[in-house]
């Protein structure tokens, strides 16, 4: 029983980490909250559903196309909502609102293209349908696959940020944009790449969440945005390991709430943990303490 | 009794003694210079006096009242105004609005007075408005009064910060490099203005400045700091000939002494 719950929490944490790592990447470099991240996540899920259910594609081609498309949406989002504001140094409020506007547009377009109902994935298109039994612990293969994918992608992301040229540019931008520019970092190119990566990760999370719960709808992004913000603050804004840790912590808090209290309180758990954290260490678990407090 | 008294004031940042054991005082009605090479701890001393940071040793008192545990806003209310080395204007506001904010302490009316438009409110606002106009006149910015503060030239911004600091009608005015970025004529005009303020209104001014010829001509007394410590104190002529001061400046590679 306990082992089963731990596995559930781990796979839930894996979703949160996938979703939140993109958010935290964008915040770390641009100091903005991207409120369209959940809408991109939703597009990933619905697009993969469309490709599988309506176009008869297999899971993997559908996953690949959806994720790439999410990356492209990410670039478009940056061009439409963030770049013009970045060019005139508009502060943190206008980007929040413009990304929200893009989110409206994305949700409405999804309603137009995919309909407003909750859709189900065709069972024959989804791989990993069995369960793995270890003693009395039953592991749906899908959960196992998601955890593996998360671990691999988090390592890939970590590798990209720490070891590659784009990653070095991202870190330079995070440190100091002016210095980065002087060092010859192509700022706009780096930011575009960052949006591709962040949005593709949201897409992966969307596809897997849609398939795992066997449901997707244009409104599935609303909640995850909020959760994502709780996760990245908890972990420390801008920190990718922090996003993983924060995602796991919130998933465990939620699971514990369901087990020991009631499933009614599940969604409050994230915010209770978050508030407690902000009172103790506002910069988050792995965050630096810059500019959190007055 | 001195207007401002510092006794053994010190503050460390991560093991570095930014200000160490400073004991000095400033009497009412004069111009006092605070000089020293870059990194000597002058601005830190300003921040310690105005309450932006707290000393970890020693006491600061103003008119006999200890400042050490007071918040910046309480210290300002006692009559200390300041400007900043890195100009800190309210850039989204107009020139005039900046100075109006500076006069916040002068308006002795409550929010309720303002809402119901009581006479105390209207009188106070009219007085403040007149005061602001005359201050803008004083710093020669009347023509720019409705321009956004961010559009002013560097020298104009320095003058605006001065007017904003004066709007609170302080007893002690602390200026952090007010002539930085000004040309010779502007700096000359500033000197004239500061001297006039001291003689005409009895204001006391404490000034950090790198422009040595200005400090030497303008100040009644000069305090010299180096590496967080007080190096010398006295009238400009004495300080200029002090061996330790000369060494500090030459040792620090400064040619402007």
């Amino acid at each position, binding site marked *: 029983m306990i082992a089963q719950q731990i596995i559930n929490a781990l796979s839930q944490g894996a979703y949160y980490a996938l979703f939140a790592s993109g958010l935290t990447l964008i915040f770390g470099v641009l100091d903005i909250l991207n409120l369209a991240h959940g809408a991109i996540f939703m597009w990933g899920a619905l697009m993969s559903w469309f490709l599988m259910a309506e176009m008869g594609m297999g899971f993997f081609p559908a996953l690949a196309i959806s994720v790439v498309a999410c990356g492209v949406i990410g670039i478009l989002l940056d061009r439409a909502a963030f770049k013009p504001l970045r060019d005139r*140094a508009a502060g943190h409020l206008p980007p929040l609102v413009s990304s929200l506007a893009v989110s409206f547009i994305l949700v409405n377009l999804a309603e137009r293209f995919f309909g407003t109902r909750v859709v189900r994935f065709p069972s024959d298109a989804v791989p990993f349908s069995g369960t793995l039994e270890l003693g009395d612990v039953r592991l749906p293969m899908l959960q196992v696959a998601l955890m593996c994918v998360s671990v691999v992608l988090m390592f890939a992301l970590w590798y990209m940020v720490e070891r590659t040229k784009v990653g070095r540019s991202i870190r330079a931008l995070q440190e100091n944009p002016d210095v980065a520019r002087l060092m010859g970092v192509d700022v706009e190119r780096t930011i575009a790449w960052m949006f591709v990566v962040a949005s593709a990760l949201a897409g992966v999370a969307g596809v897997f969440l849609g398939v795992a719960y066997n449901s997707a709808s244009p409104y599935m992004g609303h909640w995850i945005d909020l959760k994502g913000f709780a996760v990245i603050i908890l972990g420390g804004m801008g920190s990718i390991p922090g996003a993983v840790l924060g995602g796991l912590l919130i998933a465990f808090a939620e699971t514990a709430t369901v087990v020991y209290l009631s499933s009614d309180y599940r969604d409050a758990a994230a915010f209770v943990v978050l508030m407690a954290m902000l009172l103790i260490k506002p910069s988050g678990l792995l965050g630096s303490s810059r500019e959190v407090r007055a | 009794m001195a207007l401002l008294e510092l006794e053994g004031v010190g503050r460390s940042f991560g093991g570095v003694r930014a200000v160490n054991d400073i004991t000095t005082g400033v009497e009412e009605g004069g111009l006092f210079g605070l000089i020293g090479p870059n990194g000597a701890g002058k601005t830190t001393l300003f921040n310690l006096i105005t309450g932006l940071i707290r000393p970890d040793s020693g006491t600061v008192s103003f008119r006999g009242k200890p400042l050490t545990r007071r918040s910046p806003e309480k210290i300002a209310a006692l009559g200390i105004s300041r400007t900043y080395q890195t100009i800190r204007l309210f850039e989204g506001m107009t020139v005039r609005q900046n100075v109006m904010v500076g006069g916040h302490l002068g308006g002795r009316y409550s929010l309720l007075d303002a809402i119901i438009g009581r006479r105390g409110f209207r009188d106070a606002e009219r007085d403040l408005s007149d005061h602001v106009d005359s201050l803008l006149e004083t710093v020669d910015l009347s023509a720019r009064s409705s321009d956004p503060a961010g559009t002013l030239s560097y020298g104009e911004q320095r003058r605006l910060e001065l007017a904003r600091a004066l709007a609170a009608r302080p007893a002690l005015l602390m200026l952090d490099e007010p002539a930085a970025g000004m040309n010779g004529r502007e700096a000359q005009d500033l000197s004239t203005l500061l001297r006039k303020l001291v003689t005409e209104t009895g204001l006391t001014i404490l000034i950090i400045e790198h422009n040595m010829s200005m400090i030497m001509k303008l100040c009644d007394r000069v305090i010299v700091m180096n590496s967080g410590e007080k190096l010398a104190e006295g009238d400009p002529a004495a300080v200029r000939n002090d061996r330790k001061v000369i060494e500090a400046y030459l040792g620090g590679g400064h040619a402007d002494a």
Partner: protein
Amino acid sequence: MGDLLQFLASYNYLAYLAALNAILALSVYIMLMAGQLSLASMGFMAIGAYTSALLMINGGMPFAVGLLGAAALAGLIALAIGKPILRLKGVYLAITTVGFSELIRFLALNWDYLGGAMGLNGIPQTTRTWHVFLYLAILIFLFHRLDRSRYGRALRAIGLDETAAKTMGIPTARYKTLAFAASAVMAALAGSFAAHYSFYISPGEYNFSQAVLVLIFAVFGGLGTHWGPVLGAIALTLLPEVFRFLQDWRPIIYGVSVLLVVIFFPGGLVGLFKLMIPGTRRKASPIAGGKDERHGTA
């Protein structure tokens, strides 16, 4: 005849909704004046709605007492939590206040006394449209007076450079807390009026989407004066009606309009009007991000 009545009734409702949204936008705006992004308005709106509804239903109190109770409770809660919460800045404050609203919503969802997920039924319909208009008019007047006083200037100064404001003698922490309490009272009263306008409330009405919508009203209208949030709320409430013929595509028009205004008109709708009327052109909104956000305090 019946059609005409329905027409008028629906416009009556729209007018009410526009005014209500304007009030909520002002409750976000007073915090934005001080450079603080608070999304707690939905939480306080819920507090106001439930308080006055229960005072009337279970307490048998008159409407006026319900309103007073709502305002008092919201104000006291804001004063109590204001100081620790307002030490946080920028997006940290925003998310914490979202968390506050969510917790209030969970409380309403799970506390049987508050009706749980079913909400409260049978709330006396005591709100008249003119109540809401009068309330909005009073708020506009108060903002007008605030703007011309040292308190309004102080709030703006805090928003632009909190440290400099402190050394000007402005008690920044106290003013921020008071602005937070004012914002809470404004939202709570709006919540009461809304609850007693319909006849039923439920926790779902006070969610995150509503909170950000109110923020959009304010930014869309412009943050230079209090007319911005008022105009923004009215415009965005009426916009879907104007584009009724576009049917299901309306949210896109909504999104595109907001995007265009935010990107091309930093002063919002008010800024746009000022551009069109010669001679009134002044500088854009002062709330673009103060110095404290970029540089740490000295």
